[in-house]
């Protein structure tokens, strides 16, 4: 083997080595050369100066003593400092963090630094050759194993007893299929849960009582909202359907039903075709769940009338059916049809006409 195909560009010179990178391969260090003495590597510290070794020894010992002291300090801090409940209370977490973490850091770091100095200053960089063997077992072992296996196989009579062979296969097949059942059962399919929100149930319940729709409650205080309450231009509020806090799982219901009501200047508001009576003089309701990955898109800028999603900066135009004007969202925010009832309360007259939130496997592409 020549030196060129051994991959060493500068075989004899001391290689210029960028710090932290492995040393370049050298032919005489990788390949055993029979009885030849392996050459000492360029950077070997083979001749220890006794005086500097003594100095290094003391430095290392100093670090080890530091480790000892820091460990003692850790135990002492844990046991004694503020033992009357103070140290372990949340109000003194900061002090605990500094003392315990600081002591432990010091202890481990001093130990590590000491060991490293020991290796670097007091030990030599000896070349050690480790012999490698082929992976295959000796020919004799392989022959004995093969003979034993074949003999055992013949002894079972698998070949001449087909009944046993077939029933064994039959027994193993369902066992192999069992994981498929487990995988299928990892989670339920969403069924129709993602297609509707609690607005549908709430509107249906209200209509059953002869009301035109369900009232919008301010999220958090659950106060029904009247149109005159919400008369400030540039206003915005998060609402949920009436009765949502009495459902079995209110948090999951709010996660789908959360809606923002915005007071858009009526002269700027452009209702979409077929949605002319879904708003009340510029007061309009959109789903709060971004159609991209479902973050709460509720950063409403009253100067630009943009609704911004904080996660990926999808931007929707509140004056124009919450159409996407920027960002990764693929669809406009669904719009909730709202109106005013006889007592002046804002009501929703139907559920969202499309599933809210991000796309999902069963959603289908036909519904915009």
């Amino acid at each position, binding site marked *: 083997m020549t030196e060129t195909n051994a991959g060493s560009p500068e075989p004899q010179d001391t290689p*210029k*080595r*960028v*710090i*932290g990178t492995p040393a370049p391969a050298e032919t005489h260090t990788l390949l055993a050369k029979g009885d030849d003495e392996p050459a*000492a590597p*360029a*950077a*070997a*510290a*083979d*001749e220890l100066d006794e005086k500097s070794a003594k100095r290094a020894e003391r430095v290392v010992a100093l670090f080890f003593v530091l480790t000892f002291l820091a460990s003692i300090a850790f135990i002492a801090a844990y046991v004694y400092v503020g033992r009357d409940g103070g140290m372990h209370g*949340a*109000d003194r*977490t*900061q002090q605990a*963090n*500094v003392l315990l973490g600081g002591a432990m850091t010091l202890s481990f770091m001093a130990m*590590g630094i000491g060991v*490293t100095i020991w*290796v*670097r200053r007091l030990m030599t*960089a000896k070349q050690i050759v480790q012999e490698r063997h082929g992976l295959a077992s000796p020919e004799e072992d392989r022959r004995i194993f093969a003979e034993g296996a074949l003999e055992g196989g013949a002894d079972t009579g698998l070949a001449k007893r087909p009944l046993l062979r077939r029933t064994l296969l039959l027994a193993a097949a369902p066992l192999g299929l069992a994981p498929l059942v487990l995988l299928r059962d990892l989670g339920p399919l969403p069924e129709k849960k993602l297609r509707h929100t609690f607005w549908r149930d709430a509107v249906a319940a209200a209509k059953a009582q002869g009301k035109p729709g369900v009232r919008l409650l*301010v*999220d*958090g*205080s659950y*106060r029904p*909202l*009247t149109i*005159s*309450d*919400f*008369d*400030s*231009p*540039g*206003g*915005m*509020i*998060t609402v949920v359907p009436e009765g949502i806090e009495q459902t079995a799982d209110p948090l999951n219901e709010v996660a789908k039903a959360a809606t923002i009501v*915005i*007071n858009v200047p009526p002269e700027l508001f452009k209702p979409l075709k077929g949605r002319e009576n879904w708003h009340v003089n510029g007061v309009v309701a959109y789903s709060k769940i971004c159609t991209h990955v479902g973050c*709460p898109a*509720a*950063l*409403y*800028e*009253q*100067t*630009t009338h*943009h609704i*911004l999603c*904080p996660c990926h*900066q999808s*931007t929707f135009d509140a004056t124009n059916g919450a159409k996407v004007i*920027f960002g990764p969202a693929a669809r406009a925010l669904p719009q909730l049809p709202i109106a005013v009832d006889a007592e002046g309360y804002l009501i929703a007259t139907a559920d969202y006409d499309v599933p809210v939130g991000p796309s999902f496997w069963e959603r289908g592409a036909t519904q915009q």
Partner: protein
Amino acid sequence: MKWFTAWRRRPWAGYAVVLVALATIGVVYAGFSPRTAQATDSSASADDLAHGKQLFNQNCASCHGPNAEGTRDAKGNAIAPSLIGVGAAAVNFQVSTGRMPAMNPGAEMPRKTPVPVFNPDTIQVQYPPNATEEQKKALRQAAVDKNLNDIQAYVESLGNGPSVPSADQVAPANDKVGLGGTLFRTNCAQCHNFAGQGGALTYGKYAPPLLQSTPTQIYEAMITGPEAMPVFNDTTITPEQKRAIIAYIVQTRSEANPGGNGLGRIGPVAEGLAGWLVGIGLLVLAAMWITAKKPKKLKKQHD
């Protein structure tokens, strides 16, 4: 580039690069936050109105127009909005936070030290002889309060709008912090962050941090909707609920950061990121030191 190659090969070059990278990451955490002033309102006489108009002409009219009607550029885009009907609360918010008068109109008006006539620390006042430092301070505060009241009264006289809330109206409702937290997270946190640290909006606009805001200013911001902020009027979020929100903000920002540095209080992501960048950087340094060439050279064997 030969010098660079030579430099890069030096033994300490690797350490230097890692250190510079760590320092650059550290510099990213830099913030600024100016100071604030306070004000109350009262009824206004004709003299006060005249004084308010004078202050308006000196400080506001250059942008908002001599009659507060607003100004537009050649293309008809608003340079400054009309102040007719914005009310005293809007004036108090904008002036006491130092946002107005604006020095350098941009996408977002930053909070800054108010101009001297509205700043109790720098206002020029005639002191009586032998006034103590305390008295001087009270006199300066009184002068600022009068200036604020007069200019608010003048703008209010142009058209009615929300008035400045009293101290009782904005007192934090400390027994309703839970409700305040719920309302804050539902209606405010999307822009101002759940710990009131602020956040970015579009085209250079941002929701400012609420760390310096006084309860009065928080209340005024909710009822007036400064700049891009939506309005949360008293019939949508009641005054009592606003006091709960104020209590949440005041209490949250006074809480200690158990880890030392709050890292913007945006939670484990920031802490993890800092841990990774700083921690991995230190580990890389340590690994380089451990595996570096032993400094001692092989002694020449030829002698």
